[in-house]
């Protein structure tokens, strides 16, 4: 798998992790604020995914490589956090960091 393919794979993974767990996470939200935050994060991950597809992530410079490494690690954290959604605030914090990195990868790759 090339560096460019890996960029897309990790951005896709962030989106699919959030999309796949959305209904359960939404039910676990205790406040409207948490629900709103989850929606915003899912939408941002969706936007990053479609932008990634559209741009085809044509670059693979060092900054992107570094960011993609961080995103991979963050995706692993999201995956672990999904096993127990008891602490929804902690979960939302991890997802926030993941979505920010996914958006950064797409933006950097498009430069």
């Amino acid at each position, binding site marked *: 798998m090339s560096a460019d*393919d890996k960029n*897309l794979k990790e951005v896709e993974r962030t989106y699919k992790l959030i999309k796949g767990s959305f*209904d359960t996470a939404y039910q676990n939200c205790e406040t409207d604020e948490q629900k709103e935050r989850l*929606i915003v994060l899912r939408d941002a991950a969706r936007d990053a995914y*479609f932008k990634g597809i*559209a741009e085809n992530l*044509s670059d693979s410079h060092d900054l992107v490589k570094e960011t993609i490494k961080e995103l991979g690690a963050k995706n692993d954290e999201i995956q672990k956090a999904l096993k127990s959604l008891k602490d929804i605030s902690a979960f939302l914090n991890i997802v926030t960091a993941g979505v920010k990195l996914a958006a950064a990868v797409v933006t950097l790759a498009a430069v």
Partner: protein
Amino acid sequence: MGKRIQLKIISAAILMFALVSLAGCAGVNESMAGKLADKGASAVKTIGESYQATSDDLNQYVETEYLLAGLKPGYSKPSDSMLESIDTIKKELNLRKQMFTGLNDVYVSFGALCAYDAKGEVEKSVGNTVQAGNSLAAHFGSSISDPVGKLFATASGGIAGQFQADRIKDASAKIRSLLQGIIVLLEKQKEEAAIISIRKEISERKLEIGKYFWEKGYASAEGILNEDIQVYGLTPDTAALKKASQDKSISAAIGNVLTWRQKQEEDSQAAAYHAAIQTLRTLINEHAKIEAGEPVNLEAIQGYMATVQQYVDLMTAVKKGK
């Protein structure tokens, strides 16, 4: 000059012409080249249709997003950013479709060259396809256009050769360059991951909306059950089937069938993409054989095309509500 000498000169000239003609024809089997042209035409047409099918599906995807946003708590309408990206994806797919439509014209005119020496038609259609390919390359920036540009430059230009067989050989080499340029172009854009991913996303959404309507009792599973239980004279009870989604066992079972069908679709989408690229590679090999005077093998292309056609048929069937 005596009549006998004149006759000898004319006979020698005819013999010389025949020998030169035979030398020109040596190695190129016009009939096999014609068959390769037919197969190539239908193959690239199907590949173009597979890109079109994905583009059409994106429209349905957006509608599904609007439907889910209105039905499920927390689901949002497509954002402006998402719609803009989808427009770009559709433009990309359309550029590919145009390129393959051009390539279809190339093969049709290559067939005409093999049948009745239509040199001008090949030159024109190759020129059009190169133009479509260059538009696609330009769309993705200058970094990828150099190697592609060289291959397209080789493909462009007049068809050379004194005899029809020479011209077939030259046209075949030009088409081979064109195909190589197209493969480099598609690979440089890393489109494999993007195309397979978007096709998967579309089918996952179809499953989600399907399951939602089924579980809520707004959809009938009659089509599925008719297919699966109309065996050995058994007739489904239409009235009873209307309540099928209320039966927990049947509801779960139908859900499993939907998931299975989506997985089948997903597998066929990835297989179709790989088969399309493999078709182009095989066509390149078969053109090289034509030019070397070796027999061609069109069975492999037939196999790959069946896989791509399966995807196109599946998408068409889904649109017709099957």
